[in-house]
């Protein structure tokens, strides 16, 4: 019985993986180098922080910075902010002149905005053109797609804004009208 048990034990030992007497030491080179790099980084950071601590000694308080901001903002004109100007009796001509100049130029000191006066062109659903701001319709909405024809914009091309959608001859390729460059994501076939 004892011999059988001994034999069983020996066989069990044989099937188990060999176990070393003491754990093998693996040199974790990758981890050590990484740790060393981190320590170096922290040493650098300590140096930077010590420099910064010294520099704080001579810094001005926040109120001085606030005063600088207040002064800068207060003395810089801004076209997006309502302003008030004194009216001078003799400036009627200069106001008229400014209004004429403002129609075509970007200005804000004169009290007008080129964004409001710029002519705007729109194409109606029936294909005709309308314009605002005194801009001639024929100049506004004239488009010519060389070798391609322009069609009335439809729901299938909602991305247009120029009013010109170009159709492709065989519906396999999308072409852009060279004049109006509509942004279409698919071919419009006619």
């Amino acid at each position, binding site marked *: 019985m004892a011999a059988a048990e001994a034999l069983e034990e020996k066989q069990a030992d044989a099937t188990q993986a060999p176990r070393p007497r003491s754990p093998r030491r693996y040199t974790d080179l990758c981890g050590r180098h990484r740790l060393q790099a981190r320590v170096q980084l922290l040493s*650098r950071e*300590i140096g930077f922080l010590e420099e*910064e601590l010294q520099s704080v000694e001579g810094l001005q308080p926040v109120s001085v910075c606030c005063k600088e901001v207040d002064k800068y903002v207060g003395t810089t004109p801004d076209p997006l902010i*309502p302003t008030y100007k004194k009216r001078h009796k003799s400036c009627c001509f200069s106001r008229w002149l400014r209004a004429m100049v403002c129609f075509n130029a970007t200005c804000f000191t004169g009290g007008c*905005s*080129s*964004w409001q006066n710029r002519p705007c062109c729109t194409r109606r659903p029936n294909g005709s053109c309308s314009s605002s701001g005194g801009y001639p319709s024929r100049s506004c909405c004239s488009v010519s797609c060389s070798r391609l024809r322009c069609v009335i914009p439809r729901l299938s091309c909602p*991305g247009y804004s120029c009013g010109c959608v170009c159709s492709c001859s065989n519906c396999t390729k999308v072409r852009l009208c060279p004049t109006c460059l509509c942004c279409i994501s698919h071919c419009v076939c006619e």
Partner: protein
Amino acid sequence: MSVAELKERHIAATATVNSLRERLKQKQQLLVDTDVAAYGRSQGRSAISFVSTDLVCCRTLQGHTGKVYSLDWTPEKNRIVSASQDGRLIVWNALTSQKTHAIKLQCPWVVTCAFAPNGQSVACGGLNSACSIFNLNSQVDRDGNIPVSQILTGHKGYVYSCQYVPDQETRLITSSGDQTCILWDVTTGQRISVFGGEFPSGHTADVLSVSINSSNSNMFVSGSCDTTARLWDTRIASRAVRTYHGHQGEVNTVKLFPDGQRFGTGSNDSTCRLYDMRTGHQLQVYSQQHDGDDNDIPTVTSIAFSISGRLLFAGYSSGACYVWDTLLAEVILNLGELQNSHEGCISCLGLSSDGSALCTGSWDKKLKIWAFGGQRRVI
């Protein structure tokens, strides 16, 4: 040195860094004697009064078929480039609303775009980890597309932001998910300098935004998911000049203040902040109470200052676009509530070079241009 000794040194160094940071914070706190709004009130500043018709939407630019992610104005000539989820860049004439170019991108996952100072080229970047350059005067190819003229590769993460160095057609700065910013030579496609990364001290998370100082183009500011903003000198890539703390969430957007001495930030913590570049002081927090629970707090996606700095435009993920009076820290208008406003998140905004118009871009696929529509009264 053994690993155990290194570990001990690491623990000691970490404790020293934390202690120094705390001391620095306390010393800086002693210098905080006011903020911009308190100072303004003490000087008798009165709030700007805007009625809803003072700022009006005077143009709607339609054409994108996906969310608008980014826009940029030319320094002159009133043109805008926009980038969209539809994988296209569109160049618009902002005055006439006409599209002058529509560029279909090879990689449709674009999130940022920029105009070159001379208005002849545009740059874009996105999830392909590269920045592509297009010359708008190039001959189009057989498919009617403008071919790419340069691809700037080198980032190991998404390109979130790009900006040309003012008055330098050949220099561009990008920021990336690889935690770095890079200064590029656009002509050669080479990296000139890398700011941050594993060894030089820099951001410790994705860098989402950059803004270059037009008064001193050697300096730029970056904003990151690590909740800080950092100031960099392009001549010294080895370390950030200064780090600005304060935000409790990712810094999505940074923008230089018009005087070139301060800058603003916008964050996931729903606040905008104004910092002084030289001293590191946080000068003002712009924070608004929002309705809804804490999970619905809108994030600040984009900011811009008016030309005087008196107005701070801030776009939010809720679709709001607050106009802040920077000197009194009050909201004076919400463009999101005006007639003809956007119907979705405001993802980007920018001011024209002359300060007369603001352009906003949105997830509703449109861009809108806002200008002063009120009367300037004379007395």
